[in-house]
């Protein structure tokens, strides 16, 4: 009968000609077609697993295809490297993780088979069959719970042990050549999001949609239907009903069904990431119905991890979805009604049942008992499986050893007997899939009559139905779903303000779906609770003995639930074991916190396309054409310098600086913050936010502006120009622009002064034209009178340059005669080009940020953020001159008054090195050392080609801040360089360069 599924596909397959003879069972364990099976028998898929060829059908998962081919060992466990097969077949078979090329840790139980897949189990040495690391299994008695805390920590030996541990740890292998994968992420919206397309979820979706809601329904499985399609007890009519529900959903115009899509977490305000195989969709719902069902929980007995020992639901899914025989001769361990259903499902498919082992001594009657009896299936009530025995091939079960169990849960091993089988089903209980409910802030309580945690209070807009709501029977699930669907729709129109969503009534009495203690102790252990982490029953007893007898401590000490399955099959058993140990109820023990993600999510899904905003001035392409090397300034890209062939970076920078000193240069300063303020109280406003005085600033003139925070620390600077009585234009640093505009807006929201601020940072650009020839260049393009008398230093003029309306500021940041030309963004390229043409005769040279830094250093101008830090006050930075303390108020003023009573710790000074200095120069942030103590640091330093020596700025102790004081700078290599305190500006201290008679640069050097 096992050949049933074979002849057809072989007839038209493209299988390799060496047809699978080495293992008899590989001829296949496919059943005849199931009514709504998920496989497409017309499409054969070839693949290899651990070097051996296999095949499956389209629609198969890796596990179903391998299992159908008789492959029982699908992987090895994390700690002891024990052979493992299918356990849950529900996306938490963590011991069946595959490596497929670049893809690591693929979950075989749910990953669809793809043609040509080359698979290997992760975490083995030399393959899944002969994993050499399985030696660890033999050492397991030496490796008690938390063993790694108890050994290996001799200080000298730890590195050795650690290397060893790191060698054997981890699961899949990262492939270094894996490329960056960018996927699209999307935002999506719906009224009601239903999570779980089982019977209750389908019903809820239909009810909400019928009422008028726009519904999104998601399910992690390849098809909707949930347990309604496989947990049948042999009644195919149930599957038909489920199928009808699915059909209605699929054809409903207001329902969107997302299959193979995981609701990976619940986040504030009904924000749920839906993860499918290719994308992440961020769904914003107005209400969320959680119909996520329940996880089946394993029974804990010796060797419950052998391949062939399956959760009953796993077997049912194998049968009805993939038409795969889970085994040929089964022993079924039951402790609830569902176990009998599973037994019937096996029987119906012609699988022989050797025994039903009923943990309860007095099981509640159900209709399947008689049916099983009529098929001569022996039912052992009040029995447990004491252990499973491995087969000679060591890849599966050969028998179940059963024995009676007494009322205290002690196995009566004197009465044990072995029942031959090749598979064991476990159906002892369910735990609600409440992860998303917990994440949403729901409170659950333990309901003893159900032996389940059920929702107690739900946050607004969160609803639950089906098994997660404690409702287990088919018809009741439909009813529950319908109720909740309608309630959710009502919530849309009348959102309740507080946690008062009524729960569905508790279901009519059904036997508890969970056995309170399906744990069979065994002196030899290997009765696993957590299959991810290879945790055995005794590990919990021992952990509690060591004092870890609170659920959170227990979890952390044993690591239960911390593996990749996040406790889906282990948390409930751990909780019940702890309850057993401490004599508390599960409700008193409580649950651990469920955090995202529900199932692991790929980094590439989370990252998506990954947008990184970049900001460019209107001159960006011109800089590129001139060979600019760009640097980042926040989001901006700015030319650091313009590269020239056969010139070093430093030569390029110095050449640019010299060009400014000797002829004329031009720099794009479009990144400066540019703001405009108008109104009768504009001057008042500026006086409050800057330290200087602006009420007395003459129209057409500009002044330095320094901004402090409320603690008196320097945070920004710029220039304020008065364009009219009530009209100012001002600049901020490149990095500060957005934040300062925002803060200024806030201050005026509070102060309500009669003025309006407009941020022109992007709408206007600016070019600084500087150098002794700057005026000649500009004069060619404008009628504006540029004479010193008409347009003195620090004056501001509105003018037309090259037919373009501009604002001219005569500033001297770089220490030469120059103009900052502010211009509408769209005309900036035209202005730049015109200046380049007009400057050609003067060999006009574009310069970058580095040259500007050098030039301003020569002039002794500081840069906020480089020559100041997060605690610098104006006094320390030598900016006290810019602070008008006699004003009635400015931000930071009151703090400066307090600070004025204290001595300052350090002071910013200029320094130079001996002109003959030839050795390695200091760098920025090298320390100033005095008697082996740190007394300051260098903030700026450069070789000045104009002054022919190294110059810089440094913080030093206040008593050192006198001209010609010599101090020591320590280099990275420990060498000491002597510096000499020098008054600033280094260059042109008398501002001759701004005067009408321009001297030669060499004459103005200090």
């Amino acid at each position, binding site marked *: 009968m096992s050949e049933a599924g074979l002849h057809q596909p072989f007839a038209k397959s493209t299988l390799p000609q060496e047809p699978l003879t080495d293992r008899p069972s590989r001829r296949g364990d496919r059943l005849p077609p199931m009514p709504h099976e998920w496989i497409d028998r017309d499409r054969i898929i070839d693949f290899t697993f651990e070097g051996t060829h296999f095949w499956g059908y389209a629609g198969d998962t890796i596990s179903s295809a391998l299992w159908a081919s008789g492959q029982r060992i699908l992987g090895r466990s994390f700690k002891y490297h024990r052979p493992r097969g299918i356990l849950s077949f529900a996306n938490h078979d963590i011991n069946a993780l595959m490596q497929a090329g670049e893809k690591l840790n693929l979950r075989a139980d749910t990953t669809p088979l793809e043609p040509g897949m080359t698979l290997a189990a992760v975490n083995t040495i030399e393959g899944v069959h002969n994993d050499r690391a399985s030696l660890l299994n033999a050492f397991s008695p*030496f490796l008690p719970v938390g063993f790694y*805390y*108890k050994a290996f920590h001799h200080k000298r030996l730890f590195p050795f042990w650690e290397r060893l541990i790191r060698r054997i740890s981890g699961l899949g292998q990262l492939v270094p050549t894996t490329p960056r994968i960018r996927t699209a992420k999307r935002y999506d919206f719906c009224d009601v999001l239903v999570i779980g397309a089982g019977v209750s979820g389908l019903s809820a979706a239909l009810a909400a949609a019928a009422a008028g809601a726009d519904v999104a329904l998601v399910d992690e499985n390849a098809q909707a239907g949930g347990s309604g399609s496989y947990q049948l007890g042999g009644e195919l009519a149930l599957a038909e009903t489920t199928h009808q529900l699915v059909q209605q959903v699929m054809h409903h115009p207001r329902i969107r069904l997302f299959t193979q899509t995981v609701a990976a977490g619940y986040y504030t305000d009904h924000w749920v990431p839906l993860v499918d195989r290719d994308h992440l969709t961020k769904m914003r719902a107005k209400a969320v119905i959680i119909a996520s069902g329940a996880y089946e929980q394993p029974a804990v007995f010796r060797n419950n991890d052998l391949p062939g020992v399956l959760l009953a639901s796993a077997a049912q899914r194998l049968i009805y979805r993939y038409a795969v025989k889970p085994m040929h001769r089964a022993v079924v361990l039951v402790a609830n009604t569902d176990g009998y259903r599973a037994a019937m499902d096996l029987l119906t498919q012609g699988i022989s049942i050797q025994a039903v082992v009923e943990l309860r001594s007095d099981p509640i009657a159900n209709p399947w008992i008689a049916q099983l009896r009529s098929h001569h299936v022996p039912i052992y009530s009040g029995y447990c499986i004491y252990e499973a025995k491995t087969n000679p091939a060591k890849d599966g079960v050969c028998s179940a050893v059963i024995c009676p169990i007494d009322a205290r849960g002690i196995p009566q091993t004197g009465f044990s007997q072995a029942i031959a089988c090749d598979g064991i089903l476990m159906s002892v209980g369910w735990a609600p899939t409440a992860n998303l409910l917990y994440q949403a802030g729901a409170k659950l309580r333990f309901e003893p009559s159900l032996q389940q945690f059920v929702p107690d209070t739900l946050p607004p807009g969160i609803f639950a139905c089906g098994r997660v709501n404690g409702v287990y029977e088919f018809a009741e699930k439909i009813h529950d779903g319908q109720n909740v669907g309608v309630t959710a729709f009502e919530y849309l129109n009348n959102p309740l303000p507080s946690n008062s969503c009524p729960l569905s009534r508790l279901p009519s009495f059904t036997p508890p779906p969970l056995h309170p203690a399906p744990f069979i102790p065994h002196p030899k252990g290997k009765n696993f609770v957590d299959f991810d982490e290879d945790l055995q029953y005794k590990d919990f007893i021992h952990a509690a003995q060591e004092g870890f007898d609170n659920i959170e401590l227990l979890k952390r000490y044993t690591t239960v639930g911390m593996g990749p399955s996040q406790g889906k099959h282990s948390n409930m058993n751990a909780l019940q074991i702890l309850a057993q140990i401490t004599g508390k109820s599960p409700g008193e023990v409580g649950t651990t916190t469920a955090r*995202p993600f529900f199932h692991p999510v790929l980094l590439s899904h989370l990252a998506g396309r990954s947008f990184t905003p970049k900001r460019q001035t209107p001159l960006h392409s011109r800089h590129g054409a001139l060979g600019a090397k760009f640097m980042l300034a926040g989001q901006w890209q700015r030319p650091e310098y313009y590269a020239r062939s056969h010139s070093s970076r430093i030569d390029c920078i110095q050449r640019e600086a010299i060009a400014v000193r000797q002829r004329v240069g031009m720099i794009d300063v479009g990144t400066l913050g540019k703001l405009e303020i108008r109104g009768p109280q504009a001057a008042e406003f500026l006086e409050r936010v800057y330290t200087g005085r602006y009420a007395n600033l003459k129209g057409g003139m500009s002044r330095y502006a320094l901004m402090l925070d409320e*603690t008196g620390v320097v945070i920004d600077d710029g220039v304020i120009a008065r364009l009219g009585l009530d009209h100012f234009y001002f600049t901020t640093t490149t990095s500060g622009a957005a934040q300062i505009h925002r803060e200024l807006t806030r201050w005026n929201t509070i102060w309500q002064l009669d003025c309006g601020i407009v941020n022109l940072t992007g709408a206007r650009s600016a070019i600084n034209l500087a150098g002794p020839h700057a005026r000649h260049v500009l004069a060619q393009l404008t009628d504006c009178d540029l004479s010193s008398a008409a347009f003195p230093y620090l004056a501001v003029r509105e003018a037309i340059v090259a037919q373009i309306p501009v604002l001219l500021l005569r500033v001297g940041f770089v220490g030469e005669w120059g103009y900052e030309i502010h211009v509408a963004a769209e005309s900036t390229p035209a202005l730049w080009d015109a200046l380049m043409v007009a400057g050609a005769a003067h060999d006009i040279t574009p310069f970058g940020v580095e040259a500007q830094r050098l030039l301003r250093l020569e002039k002794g101008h500081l840069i906020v953020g480089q020559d100041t830090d997060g605690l610098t006050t104006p006094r320390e930075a030598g900016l006290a001159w810019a602070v008008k303390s006699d004003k009635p108020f400015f931000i930071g003023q009151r703090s400066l008054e307090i600070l004025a009573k204290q001595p300052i710790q350090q002071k910013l000074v200029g320094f130079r090195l001996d002109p003959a200095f030839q050795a390695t120069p200091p760098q920025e942030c090298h320390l100033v050392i005095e008697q082996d103590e740190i007394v300051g640091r260098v903030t700026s330093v450069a070789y000045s080609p104009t002054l022919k020596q190294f110059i810089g700025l440094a913080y030093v102790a206040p008593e050192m801040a006198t001209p010609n004081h010599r101090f020591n700078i320590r280099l990275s290599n420990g060498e000491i360089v002597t510096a000499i305190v020098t008054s600033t500006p280094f260059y042109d201290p008398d501002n001759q360069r701004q005067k009408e008679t321009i001297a030669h640069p060499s004459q103005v050097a200090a």
Partner: protein
Amino acid sequence: MPLRLLKFAFSREYPETRMFRQPDRLQSSYDAVIIGGGGHGLAAAYYLARDYGMTHVAVLEKGYLGGGNTGRNTTIIRSNYLTPEGVKFYNESMRLWQDLSQDFDLNLFYSNRGHFTLAHTDAAVRTMRWRAEVNKHYGIASELVDPETIQKACPLMDLTCAGHAPVLGALYHAPGSIARHDAVAWGYGRGADRRGVEIHQQTEVLGITVRSGKVTGVETNRGSISTSRVLCAVAGFTPRILRLVGLRSPLYIHPLQAMVSEPMKPWLDPIIVSGSLHVYVSQTARGELVMGASLDPYELHATRSTLEFAEGLAAHMLDLFPCLSHVKVVRQWAGIADMTPDFAPIMGKTPISGFYLDAGWGTWGFKATPVSGKTMAYTIAHDRPHPLIESFALSRFANYELVGEKGAASVGH
């Protein structure tokens, strides 16, 4: 196989006893009460008992041992701070860390991995150099290294960061380490317990009685205690305790999130931190990548996770390590960080006599666990701040004497 594991195979009974007792009831008085059973509180209790013989001490923990930020951080340990105060303090912590496993006879997996703080801008390079120079001044291994050195230590890193923020250099701190965070609390807890300190879990402080400016007792959900010395070591809950005694502080509370990947075979040896990308990452002995980023942008006293955090961190992780595209994130979590304006802790005495504060641990508390315990024990025993923490006093704000650690930290880990 270490010999000490033999006993587990050959003992009839499981050969371990409780790590810490569970006292039935509170006593009516203690010489000192420590609020907070996290690493810091337990460490203070441990050193009080060990170094000063003060054993009549109760540690009160509202939840369970080490359940706060001790169990929620990304376990990075380093001492490459910016200010002399910070450097000296954390360096002492590093010194204590080295021997803790042996002191406790408990393997903390104190793992020396080396620590790179990447610089993506010239400003960051300057700051790294500043830190390196200050560090070296105090004898700490710390140096500015070039991109080639980084690439060699971490071959899978894309030094261009997908072209967005090329790595220009890094601060390399060879002693940088990670440790198993929970075990630190257990080790200190066991050590304190064995010396007589009582650890009371599920014990919440509801009030603190202060008479004439002096602490006289503590009210809890399990009864009243009289005591003249109270240490508050509750991290993100500090403002709530301070409210009980009427003290104000600059502390502000923001969540700090992190996430962890599925285990994979080890490939990342050092700890990598990038300030510009707001990323820090290390690989544990189990093979997981533990990843963190910057603080949440607004105040919240809850440990909820956000999706935008995971999205942003994932994008930046892939900028740094494109080959992680197929790696999956298993779990997100969060802690509650108590931030200070200067990114330095608040430690020592307060205006209330007998009320001591160990707070302001923001994103840098785990690594300070040993030294904070040690210096707070000193401070309590002598009623005088330990010299290493004098500049961390609460009074520094009123005096405008901030520490200035903020300059180093766009990511503070």
